[in-house]
């Protein structure tokens, strides 16, 4: 819980080169880009850009897709995390590698992969199309799938870690009080890892909101249908449209709000979980 406060004595002050390098890194990689964005922002145009139907469409598509992707990640991610944390079966490591592959896979490659799985000529896309008349590519469903593909691993690894560090004696205690598996899961396991679930959701949503490569490859770039904020920003930037910067600032603001509101509380809780 409360860690003993470290005295700032001679032994634990960072060496000067580390301070200098750290400061340079902070300024070059984080400070300057942010300053550039704010410096070039056409503040007088903000109102008109935000009223622009194209921008509003992109915002709407972005919110729908990223929230849906977060929902799907929770729905499927908790069971997957549970399997990875508690499962005892051969090939467990291979399954974990599979579930976390999108973390390291270039998103464009992910988009291509999704296309050859669910596309009209894809592995199951052909059957979806022939039997159910469902065509996923270049629809909002494709954008949701692409964002889920890229973002869900963030949820899985966060929740898996929490399940691993969870003291299983509490679940055993619940069993002795008559709780069956589902009741234990619902009334003990999930509430005890709730802070990590919330943290995982925040990370997943932020990642889904910023998704670009897999979305544009698998879902295309159709305004009002599959064009999310990052896609709209890129297009506007290419066309020297000031809306690009305004929308960038919009995404930046959303990110900061996520970090401030969810992040601080959640990460404080996780530190407590880890400490306790």
């Amino acid at each position, binding site marked *: 819980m409360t860690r003993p406060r470290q005295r700032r004595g001679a032994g634990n002050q960072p060496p000067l080169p580390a301070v200098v390098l750290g400061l340079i890194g902070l300024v070059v990689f984080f400070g300057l880009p942010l300053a550039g964005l704010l410096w070039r922002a056409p503040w007088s145009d903000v109102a008109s850009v935000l009223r622009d139907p194209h921008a509003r469409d992109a915002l709407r598509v972005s919110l729908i897709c990223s929230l849906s992707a977060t929902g799907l990640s929770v729905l499927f991610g908790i069971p997957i995390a549970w399997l990875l944390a508690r499962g005892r079966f051969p090939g467990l490591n291979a399954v974990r590698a599979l579930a976390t592959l999108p973390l390291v896979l270039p998103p464009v490659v992910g988009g291509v992969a999704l296309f050859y799985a669910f596309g009209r000529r894809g592995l199951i896309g052909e059957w979806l199309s022939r039997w159910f008349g469902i065509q996923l590519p270049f629809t909002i469903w494709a954008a949701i799938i692409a964002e889920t593909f890229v973002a869900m691993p963030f949820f899985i690894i966060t929740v898996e870690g929490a399940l691993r560090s969870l003291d299983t004696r*509490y679940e055993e205690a619940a*069993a*002795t*009080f*008559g*709780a*069956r598996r589902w009741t234990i899961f619902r009334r003990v396991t999930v*509430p*005890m890892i709730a802070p990590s679930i919330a943290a995982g959701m925040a990370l997943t949503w932020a990642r889904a909101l910023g998704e670009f490569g897999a979305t544009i490859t698998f879902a295309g770039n159709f305004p009002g249908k599959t064009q999310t904020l990052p896609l709209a920003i890129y297009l506007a930037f290419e066309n020297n449209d000031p809306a690009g910067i305004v929308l960038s600032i919009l995404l930046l603001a959303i990110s900061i709000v996520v970090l401030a509101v969810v992040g601080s509380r959640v990460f404080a809780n996780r530190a407590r979980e880890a400490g306790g």
Partner: protein
Amino acid sequence: MSATGLVCDVRVRLGTLDLDVSLRAAPGELIVLVGPNGAGKSTLLRSLAGLLPIDAGRIALDDTVLDDPGQGAFVPAARRSVGVVFQNGLLFDHLSVVENVAFGLRSRKTSAREARRVAAGWLTRLGFDADAGVRPGQLSGGQIQRVALARALAFEPRLLLLDEPFAALDATTRVEVRRELRRHLDSIDAPKILVTHDPVEALAMADRLVVLEHGHVVQQGTADDVRARPRSLYAADLVGIHLLRGTARDGVVTLSDGREIVAATDGALSGTVLVTIHPRAIALHSRRPEGAARNVWSATVADVDDDGDRVRVRLGEPVPLVVEITRGGRSALALEAGSPVWVSLKASEITVQPD
């Protein structure tokens, strides 16, 4: 289904532990399971609770078979009626106190309102006087134990298991909780098994002591039985401590037979007390020792038990104590059954606590 209590024959191999225990507990009986760390106490409790299937043997509670690998029978923890008070309480921090206590009832499909009503009743009965709506994180050690006990009792289990219920308590709370616990446990009709490695707790609580070492029961019986003939070093150390009841007044304790013992207390204690006499407090002499005025009396040796390493001398009236001495000490005092001997107690090695 009749209440015949617990009949178990448990064999479990777990790592280096080879547990092989046969145990019976009558309805209402309190068995105190003692033994060194790693003796298999917790493993036995886990088997009884249904958290660990046994490898061989049989566990039956009130004529219901809970575990019998030979017959392929195993009732999982959730369907056994076994209440457990876990070490450190293990209360659910995300639920309020009353929800913790209601947990067992809720799992058994009691309505939320009824479960809360019953839970609140148990909390009152067990003397929980804080706000039952708070989260357990804010409770004191003593309160946590009360809630943990209420949670284990609220669904009226047919077997109650208590795993080191005092371990996390400070000395003062420990005494208080132990007195309460004994009073509450007396009113529970189910068999009760309490695990501890604190000798005072063991002696103060037990109807019957079961000494477990290396996975086997080395001895069982009342505290007096075990004290008369401890069958292992551990048991001898455990019961080397004498626990007597008496009434305290101004630092003087009057035992039930009228003999007075002076203890090094601040004199503030009065009423019924438990007197703990450590073996090192007792000395035997062939003549009345000089100097010491109090806590000295003459007694007759009831019998002498020489097991080769240690010599145990059992004294008769007025205070039945068992004293361990060396073989050299025995020959110096020429002790045999029937020999007269002088006994002295060092007041500073006697502790007195409220009973």
